[in-house]
């Protein structure tokens, strides 16, 4: 599995490149109840499950890519293979010019993985001690270390907590320390796996803003998975949708929003209840409120002007707003109807 074209990476080479990357697990199957346990003990039954299948991906330097998909879609398994934690069953992966699973030291020095659901810091010691340990591991000079620790600590607002034991920090504070720990060595490629999970909305926004700014300054390539669409919308110009271990969409966030058509969401409020049976609403998928004084419509972009004028002149409209189909709703629709996806 050792790479022959080792790390001969030019400026324009993709940071990540994988072809037909596949990960299969053997999973034990057991019928419920005591009899099932007995049967599986005598004659174990197992099936091979593909967590990731024939995955092709290219990510260029400085890109921010959002990996989207429901739980169990294979996003995290893909990240595990790209970081060299898990061995692929088949296919080729090159990350920063290295074959990830061979995990050469130079490769490990250039990547970082933030796991929202798993702490990488030592809980029994203060964060600063962990940072110093990582400084040695990543061979960061004293000058760079001091400068980075203080500037990251300042931006994230956790400098006063450096000498507190990690286990005594709140989830949000701990996550900020995790981010610091991952960025101390100034990685070229950063994998963020649910970095805002469990955080309140203020902390989520703080971390999003931090990454936006960090990426702008350092041009770090970022792969982000998150269940919070706000994270994806704020950070990722490019989206890769993973369903059942396969790549089902790869394109700009704008293209993703238009996968279901060029429809606009129009919300109207009226001064009095209006006739819901009026034929004007036909084909607009109206979603009424209880008393009939507000409605949400889906209108094709091309006919937006014409149909809006018709409604505004026919009914006592007091408020009118329009927005494109929210990405969250696009995703929900696609997850429920994967056949709507192109290809």
């Amino acid at each position: 599995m050792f790479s022959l074209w080792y790390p001969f990476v030019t400026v324009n080479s993709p940071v990540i490149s994988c072809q037909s990357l596949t990960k299969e697990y053997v999973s034990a199957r057991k019928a419920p109840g005591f009899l099932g346990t007995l049967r599986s003990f005598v004659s174990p039954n197992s099936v091979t499950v593909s967590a990731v299948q024939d995955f092709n991906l290219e990510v260029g330097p400085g890109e921010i890519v959002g990996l989207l998909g429901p739980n169990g879609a294979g996003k995290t398994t893909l990240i595990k293979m790209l970081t060299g934690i898990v061995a692929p069953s088949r296919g080729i992966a090159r990350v920063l010019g290295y074959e990830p699973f061979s995990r050469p030291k130079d490769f490990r020095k250039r990547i970082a993985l933030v796991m929202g659901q798993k702490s990488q810091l030592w809980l029994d010691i203060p964060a600063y001690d962990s940072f110093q340990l990582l400084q040695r591991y990543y061979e960061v000079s004293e000058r760079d270390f001091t400068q980075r620790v203080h500037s990251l600590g300042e931006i994230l607002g956790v400098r006063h907590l450096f000498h507190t034991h990690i286990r005594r920090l709140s989830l949000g504070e701990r996550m900020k320390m995790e981010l610091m720990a991952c960025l101390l060595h100034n990685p070229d490629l950063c994998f963020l796996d649910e970095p805002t999970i469990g955080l309140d909305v203020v902390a989520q926004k703080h971390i999003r803003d931090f990454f936006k700014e960090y990426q702008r300054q350092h041009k770090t390539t970022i792969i982000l998975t998150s269940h919070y669409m706000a994270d994806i919308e704020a950070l990722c110009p490019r989206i890769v949708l993973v369903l059942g271990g396969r790549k089902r969409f790869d394109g700009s966030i704008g293209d993703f929003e238009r996968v279901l058509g060029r429809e606009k969401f129009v919300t109207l409020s009226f001064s009095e209840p209006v006739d819901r049976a009026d034929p004007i609403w036909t084909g607009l998928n109206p979603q009424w409120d209880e008393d009939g004084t507000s409605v949400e419509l889906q209108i094709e972009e091309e006919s937006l002007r014409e149909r809006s004028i018709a409604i505004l002149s026919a009914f006592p409209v007091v408020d009118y707003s329009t927005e494109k189909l929210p990405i969250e709703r696009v995703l929900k629709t696609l997850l429920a109807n994967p056949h709507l996806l192109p290809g």
Partner: protein
Amino acid sequence: MMMRELGKWQKTISVSLSRYMAFKADFFLMLVAPSLVFIAINYNIWRSIYESRGGGSISGFTMDQMLQYQCWSFIVTLLVRSHRTWNLSEHIRLGRMTAFLLYPFDAWKYYAGEFIAFQTLQVVTAVLAIGVLEFFNFLPPLDIATCLVGIGFSLLVSVLWFVIDFTFGLIAFWLEEVWIFRVIFGFFAVLFSGAFIPIELFPRALQRVLEYTPFPFITSVPVHIFLGTSHVSLWSAAVTLLGWIASLSLGAMMLWRRGLRLYNAAGI
């Protein structure tokens, strides 16, 4: 380059020391207390056996010699068998190994650093324990040189124990629960290493079989070095021990490589 690598080891050891020292009560209860209970039981059992026989000797051991043997066995246990890489199997099973696979400092080095930190504390504990046993006349006047050689040899044996324990931890790549293997091995180690019954009391045939295993090195050989009654030359014992360490390390390395292919980083 060398200095950087040393710096990584030094920091790993100092952080591990801080972590052990952070929980003084846990440290004592988990690691020193069991050895204390073990010596108390052993000491009293052997004392009762000799007193019920009205003195005399058993396979050349007088009561005083047997009680001294048990005291040194306690010291050797502190030095050799206290460190447990229990967290390794847990790290594999629960996916915490992931962080160690990402750092540019190999996982085994991290565990070895933890082990060195622990042994540092154990040497201090053992020296204090020797002082206490000496003060209360459980041990005859000490020859410092013999004592230093005994501690040095015991620390070498602790490396063997570390490799064995590490190897057991790696089984977690294949099996969910590995503690049963540790318990079984621990039982055999107590029985066949001479921790409870000196090997000299075993039938000749069994003694001969044990010579081809690492068991005598775990307790019997270092205890005899402390007692000054060792029949094997120190150098040949050290070379044989190094041979065991090297071959078991090779086995651990192979297990690590194979196991890593099965690792699924559960929980993330």
